[in-house]
């Protein structure tokens, strides 16, 4: 039953195939087809949402994909509360971004190819969130990896873009390495890889003592995909891709796959405190680490990229401390306002002839009012100003983090402060203050076409309203409501909740924390206001005073160069040595020397053929003598 569910992933796949094969013919209409495909799957997702709302979980198997020995993996779909939320986000935001791309990619030579990749990405993402076993999760995982590789490297004629694409794929692949080993451990211990199967036999995993290693390895896969600390290096470079790609893939959907995985396997992660602690540590560290880098970056998209990494850190803190619902809630709200921020940045770049350096912007508020207004709403949301969505989701994570350990809350708060500061810096430098735009560019700054601004507006509404559905219980208690979002997701996390003891926050503590986070947010904004609008404190002066720190930050802690020198070059040099020395000299050496030895022996043998007849005669006579000698002495 519910066979219609298969339409949701297959429509984008169909769109991808059509655009892929006939893209060059369709030219302009390719965008339209792609958007329609996503719209259809969005509508069906809404229909599925209502089915799931009244409690029925859709499970439908099309055919057994792989069956060999005792390993079986079915091509089956499981749509429960968690996946329907993700599907709504993916298809909803995806649809808006598709519409936006029609405008943004207008006039691109191979627009068919672009939309084919975009649809293929949506198909993979939907398979990722809808699959009922780890193998389908892995299929979606690598599928989105390839699509991000293709889309980042879309402007393949730019050397940097193709390099960034490759870097992204390899970094993801390193993560997938851990993910794959995690699957192997789980399969070899309990023989099944479906979520239901794992949930049922999780105690067997506990008994075998592999829960921690499996959880950590799976988390390694999540780090690769959601750009957490060791494997985040690819996300800033991924900004080489077109902006709608950054919005869809590197803000709203793909990067959240890691959080989805941890949430989906909550019953597994919860059972290993070590793993949870590692997740929290890495989440906190990444949040702070990325925020610091965002402070000094001058490229509008890279700032947003670092902020994404930072916000993902928060989500991981959320799931790390066991508040899975809070983590997913922040994921959803983040998808809205971060997608909006990126699309806004795209609109700004579009109207400033693809200028990305915020030092060459300023005072755009008057000229592109709609983009500015929507951007400001998203800014307020991300900074955590009530009643915007960001406040509720981030605050709930911080509240649970406080219960986990106050230290985490402190770091979280610092992170929130930095977030508020660098976002305000971004907004002030872009939209307010004096205009630093080059004169000829300034002349034809124009508002973007409606096909781009309408999605901005819709996303703006979502980032404002989005927070209301998940108002933390403490606040909702005031007027008798409760956290609808958390309740909606509770059945999915029932197993995890039952295992770990429930956290109960006293209302007083919650209000205190909320007040604190509001103050922090306002503080961050006010500091940025002082520095960039009122020029009370000259940012350059501070930069010179802490020149050492500033240089390190602006060079992204030299991580890229470190990875390059520390890992990549040694491997390449080692392979060179392997090839030139081991392969050609040693192994081929043996092979060729075998030939040479035969040649040398023949050199000696050659001496016998002197050409003198007498020599041959004398050798014959010696032969005769030997024979006779044999007869004599026999």
């Amino acid at each position: 039953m519910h066979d219609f569910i298969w339409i949701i992933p297959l429509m984008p796949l169909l769109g991808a195939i059509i655009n892929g094969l006939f893209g060059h013919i369709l030219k302009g209409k390719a965008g339209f087809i792609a958007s329609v495909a996503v719209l259809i799957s969005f509508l069906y997702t809404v229909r599925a949402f209502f089915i799931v709302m009244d409690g029925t979980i859709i499970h439908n198997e099309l055919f057994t994909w792989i069956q060999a020995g005792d390993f079986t993996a079915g091509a089956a779909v499981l749509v429960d509360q968690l996946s329907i939320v993700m599907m709504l986000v993916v298809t909803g935001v995806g649809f808006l971004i598709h519409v936006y791309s029609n405008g943004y990619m207008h006039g691109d030579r191979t627009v068919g190819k672009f939309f084919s990749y975009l649809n293929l990405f949506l198909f993979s993402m939907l398979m990722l969130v809808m699959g009922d076993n780890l193998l389908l999760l892995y299929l979606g995982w690598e599928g989105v990896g390839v699509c991000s590789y293709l889309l980042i490297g879309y402007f393949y004629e730019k050397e940097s873009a193709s390099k960034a694409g490759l870097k992204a794929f390899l970094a993801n692949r390193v993560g997938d390495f851990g993910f794959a080993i995690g699957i192997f451990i789980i399969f070899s211990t309990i023989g099944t890889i479906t979520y239901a199967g794992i949930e049922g036999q999780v105690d067997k995993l506990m008994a075998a003592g592999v829960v921690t290693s499996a959880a950590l390895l799976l988390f390694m896969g999540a780090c690769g995909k959601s750009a957490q600390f060791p494997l985040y290096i690819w996300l800033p470079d991924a900004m080489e891709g077109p902006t709608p790609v950054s919005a869809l893939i590197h803000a709203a959907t793909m990067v959240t796959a890691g959080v989805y995985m941890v949430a989906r396997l909550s019953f597994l992660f919860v059972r290993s405190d070590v793993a949870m602690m590692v997740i929290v540590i890495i989440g906190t560290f990444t949040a702070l680490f990325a925020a610091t880098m965002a402070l000094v970056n001058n490229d509008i998209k890279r700032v947003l990229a670092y902020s994404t990494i930072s916000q993902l850190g928060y989500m991981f803190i959320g799931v790390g401390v066991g508040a899975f619902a809070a983590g997913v809630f922040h994921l959803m709200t983040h998808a809205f306002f971060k997608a909006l921020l990126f699309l806004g940045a795209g609109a700004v770049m579009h109207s400033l002839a693809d200028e990305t350096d915020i030092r060459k912007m300023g005072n755009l508020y008057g000229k592109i009012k709609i983009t500015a207004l929507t951007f400001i709403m998203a800014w307020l949301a991300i900074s955590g100003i009530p009643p915007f969505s960001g406040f509720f989701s981030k605050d709930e994570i911080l509240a649970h983090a406080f219960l986990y350990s106050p230290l985490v809350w402190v770091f979280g708060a610092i992170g929130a402060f930095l977030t508020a500061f660098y976002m305000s810096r971004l907004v002030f430098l872009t939209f307010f203050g004096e205009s630093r735009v080059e004169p000829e560019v300034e002349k034809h700054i124009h508002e973007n076409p409606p096909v781009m601004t309408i999605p901005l507006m819709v996303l703006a509404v979502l980032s404002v309203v989005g927070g209301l559905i998940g108002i933390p219980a403490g606040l909702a208690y005031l007027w008798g409501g409760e956290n609808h979002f958390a309740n909606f997701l509770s059945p999915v996390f029932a197993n995890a909740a039952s295992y770990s003891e429930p956290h109960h926050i006293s209302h007083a503590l919650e209000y205190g924390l909320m007040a604190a986070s509001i103050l922090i947010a306002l503080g961050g904004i006010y500091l940025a206001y002082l520095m960039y609008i009122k020029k009370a404190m000259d940012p350059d002066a501070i930069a010179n005073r802490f020149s050492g720190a500033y240089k390190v930050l602006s060079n992204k802690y030299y991580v890229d160069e470190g990875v390059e020198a520390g890992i990549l070059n040694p491997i390449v040099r080692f392979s060179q040595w392997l090839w030139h020395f081991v392969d050609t000299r040693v192994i081929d050496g043996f092979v060729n020397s075998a030939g040479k030895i035969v040649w040398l022996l023949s050199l000696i043998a050659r001496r016998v053929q002197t050409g003198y007849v007498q020599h041959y005669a004398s050798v014959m006579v010696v032969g005769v003598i030997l024979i006779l000698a044999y007869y004599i002495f026999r």
Partner: protein
Amino acid sequence: MAIEEILFWFFAVAAVAGGLGVVLHPNPIKSALFLVMTFFALAGEYILLMGHFVAIVHIAVYAGAIMVLFLFVIMLLNVPEETRQGGVWGAMRYVALGLFVFLSFQLSYFGFQDFFGDKQQLVKETEIGTVESIGMSLFSEYVLPFEIASILLITAMVGAIYLSKSKLIIEESKKKKAVEKEDH
């Protein structure tokens, strides 16, 4: 010392001296003549062994025909005396000497071993060496080898004629001569 024994030693010494002459004398003509002397000595030996027919045929074929051919060719090619002393001559002399000693010792050992001492055999006077007995067996039992021998001789002659007449060698030598003329 019976008369036969004296004859034997006379012929033996002649044969060996001839052999040495053939081998050691630098001038090919002299060595050819020494060979003729050996042939006569051997004929004598055959007679001692009652091989009369063989002796006569030996002299006719070898001394008569083959040596004449040799001398003819030596004269035709005006073969110079062997002057080159160094090179292979030097080194090979000792090798040859060594081989000679070894070989002849071994062969004679066989001779000694079977017929020496009590088993000593003396030469018997037999009739088999005569023309009559050879002729009888040659044309009864061994008529086929006899005919084949004739075929062999025919082919040898044809071969010799062809070799000396072959156009290839003639042109080759003409060409060589032409080249030499240009050089001078």
